[in-house]
C-alpha cells in the first residue's frame, strides 16, 4: 500500500492499524534520518537509508525478515535511478514478507517515471522493466493526500550595478566552461543565480523567515535546504536549490505549500522560477494520473 502526503502521526496510526489487523511480530522502518518518526508498535527497529546497503544490516535483515515482519518504507524516494542498489536491497527484503507500507510525501522527484520506484516496491517489482501508466496503477492500493503547490513571484529590482556584474560573470563562466571539458555546464546557472543574492538582501524582512542555498550573508532568519527540520514556517524562497530532491525535502519537512519567491529582474532568476513552475505542473499532472487509477 502506498500513502502519499501523510503526516508522521497519520503514518504511525496506519502502522498501528495494520499491526492490529495482521499477525505482526516486528516492524522494521527504513527511513532517512531526518524523516524518522516515533513508532508506537513496541517491537520495532529503525534502519537509516544509507545503512540499508551495508552488509552488517543487509545480511542480518535477510535472515530476520519473515512473514510476520512489517516493512515500512518511509520517504525512501532518494534517487531517480530505478535500479539503484539500495532499492534492489529493499526489493529483496520485500520478497520475504507480504506486509509492507510505503510512505512518501510527494509522488515524484522530477518526472512521472520516479513514481515507478514506489510502485515497484509495492508490487514485488513485477513490472520493474516497464514504464508505469495509469492503466497499471490498479495493481497497487494508493491513498493520497494531495499537495497543491502554489509559487508566487515577488519581484526584486537588481539595480544597474548588479546587472553589469551579472553580464561580466556570465561571460567569464561561459569562457571557463568552454575552455575546460571537465567543468559542468550546469554550474553556469548555479553560479549566476548567486549574483542576485545581494540585490535580494534589500528586500529581507527581519520578521520573516527565508530559505536559501547557503547562509553566505549570515542571516539569522535564513535556513538552507540541507537542514533536518523547518520549524519556523512559513518561509519565503530567497533562492531555489538546483536539485528538485532538495526542494522536495524542504516541502516535506516544512509542510508548506504556498510559497513566496524572491525573483530579481535577472534572466537567471526568471529561468529558475519558470523551471520550478514547470516542476509544479509536472507534480500536478502526476496527481492527475494517480487520480485516474481504475
Amino acid at each position, binding site marked *: 500500500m502506498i500513502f502519499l502526503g501523510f503526516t508522521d502521526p497519520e503514518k504511525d496510526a496506519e502502522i498501528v492499524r495494520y499491526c492490529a489487523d495482521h499477525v505482526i511480530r516486528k516492524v522494521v522502518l527504513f527511513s532517512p534520518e531526518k524523516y524518522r518518526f516515533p513508532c508506537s508498535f513496541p517491537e520495532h527497529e529503525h534502519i537509516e537509508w544509507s545503512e540499508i546497503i551495508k552488509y552488517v544490516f543487509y545480511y542480518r535483515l535477510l535472515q530476520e525478515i519473515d512473514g510476520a515482519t512489517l516493512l515500512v518504507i518511509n520517504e525512501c524516494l532518494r534517487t531517480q535511478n530505478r535500479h539503484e542498489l539500495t532499492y534492489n536491497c529493499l526489493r529483496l527484503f520485500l520478497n520475504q514478507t507480504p506486509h509492507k507500507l510505503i510512505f512518501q510525501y510527494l509522488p515524484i522527484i522530477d518526472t512521472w517515471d520516479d513514481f515507478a520506484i514506489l510502485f515497484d516496491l509495492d508490487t514485488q517489482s513485477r513490472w*520493474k522493466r516497464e514504464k508505469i501508466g495509469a492503466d497499471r496503477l490498479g495493481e497497487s492500493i494508493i491513498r493520497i493526500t494531495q499537495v497543491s503547490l502554489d509559487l508566487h513571484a515577488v519581484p526584486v529590482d537588481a539595480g544597474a550595478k548588479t546587472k553589469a556584474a551579472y553580464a561580466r560573470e556570465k561571460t567569464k563562466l561561459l569562457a571557463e566552461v568552454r575552455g575546460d571539458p571537465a567543468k559542468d555546464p*550546469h554550474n553556469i546557472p548555479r553560479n549566476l543565480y548567486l549574483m542576485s543574492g545581494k540585490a535580494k538582501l534589500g528586500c529581507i524582512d527581519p520578521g520573516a523567515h527565508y530559505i536559501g542555498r547557503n547562509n553566505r550573508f549570515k542571516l539569522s532568519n535564513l535556513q538552507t535546504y540541507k537542514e533536518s527540520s523547518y520549524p519556523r514556517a512559513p518561509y519565503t524562497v530567497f533562492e531555489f536549490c538546483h536539485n528538485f530532491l532538495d526542494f522536495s525535502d524542504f516541502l516535506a519537512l516544512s509542510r508548506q505549500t504556498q510559497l513566496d519567491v524572491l525573483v530579481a529582474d535577472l534572466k537567471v532568476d526568471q529561468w529558475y522560477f519558470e523551471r520550478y513552475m514547470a516542476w509544479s505542473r509536472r507534480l500536478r499532472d502526476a496527481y492527475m494520473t494517480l487520480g485516474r487509477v481504475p
Partner: protein
Amino acid sequence: MRLVQSYAAKKTVLEAARDRIAFVFDHYESIIVSVSGGKDSTVLAHLALVEAHRRGRRIGIYFLDEEVVYQSTIDQVEYLMTLYPENTIPLWLQLEFHLTNATSSTEGQLIAWEAGKHKLWMRPKRKGSIQHPPWDREKQTVRDKNKGFGFYDVIENFERCYTGTAFLVGLRAVESPNRWRAMVKNPIGVGERRIYWGTQKGANVALYPLYDWNYFDIWRYLYEERVKYSRIYDLMFKKGYPITEMRVSSFIHERSFKSIVDLPEFEPKTYERLLKRIKGIALAQETGKAAKLFRVSKLPKNFRSWIAYRDFLLKTHPDPERRPIFEKRFARHLQNEYVARQQCRQLILNDYENNLPVDNKPDPRDELIRYYDEVL
C-alpha cells in the same frame, strides 16, 4: 502466402513457440539448436528437445565453446546435452579461433584452445567434442584477415557444412530494435507459409521461435517446467544487477569484460584460471567499472581534454598494426569532445573491429552551453 505478419491473438507466446517448433519439425529433417548456456537458449533447447522426444527424432545441440566462459555455462550446456541423450546429437565445438581481448593492449587477442598451450587452457577439452574443423580447410573463409579466424568465421564455416538445415536461435526481439530488425526484415517462405521469425542463411535457414518472448516469459517457463538454469543468474540477481546486464557470455570482449569484476565472488576458481590464461584480467577485475579507466566516463586528471587523451593513447598505442586502423577510422570523425571520449573508449578497449561504434555527432555539451548562453 500471407503478405503481412499476423499474430494469433488468443495464443500465449508459449503456445505460439510450441506451434512454431512443431512447424519446424514438420518441414525440416535436419534441425540444430544453437546454445550459449544462457537462459534464452536453455528454454529454446528444452522446447525443441521435448518435441524431438515426443516424435522420436534426433536434433543437434550446437555449442561453440569460447573457452573463457563461466564454469556454470559449461555445466549448463552439459545439462542440456544430456537431458534427452537419445534425441540429441552433441555438437560441442572446441576449435582454435581468435577472440578479441578488451582487457589488454599488449595481448589484444586470445586464441581459444590454442595448440601447445593446453596446460593454460581454462579446462581440458571435453570428451566427444568436435576438436578439428569439420569443413574443407581449403574452402575456409575468413571475414577479417587482420583479426584472423574469429568467432563468426567458425559459425559461418560450420553452418556451411550443412544444407537444408534449420538452425534454431534463441534471439528475442525485445532485447534491442536491431535484433528485431535482423530477425523480421527478410521473411522466408516455408511450404505454403511466409515465416517472419526466420532468415535465409545460405543453403540453410536461421529460425527464431522465441522472437516475441519477453524476459518474464523465459523465467516463467524455466520455473514452471522446472528447467535448470545457469546459477550465475541467481548470483547476479543477489548482487542487484539490472535485468539488462544479466548476461552470460565470454569474459573478455568489449561488451562483457565487466563480468570479470564480480568473477572472484561468483566463481573464484574460474577467476584463478583466467588470471593465468591471458593478460589484463587483474586490471579489468579492479577497474572494469572504474570511471577513469574501463568505463571511460571521467577524464584522467593528467589531461585537459578528451582530444588530448585520445591523441596520447593513439601515440602510445603498443600495437603498430592496430594503430593505423584507429587512425584511419578517427580521420573520418568529427573533432569534438563527445566523439573523442568515445574514441578513447575504443582505444582503451582495443576495439579495432569497431564493435562499439562511435556516435559521430556534434557535442551535446556544446548545445547545452549554447542554450545557457541564450536563456541566462
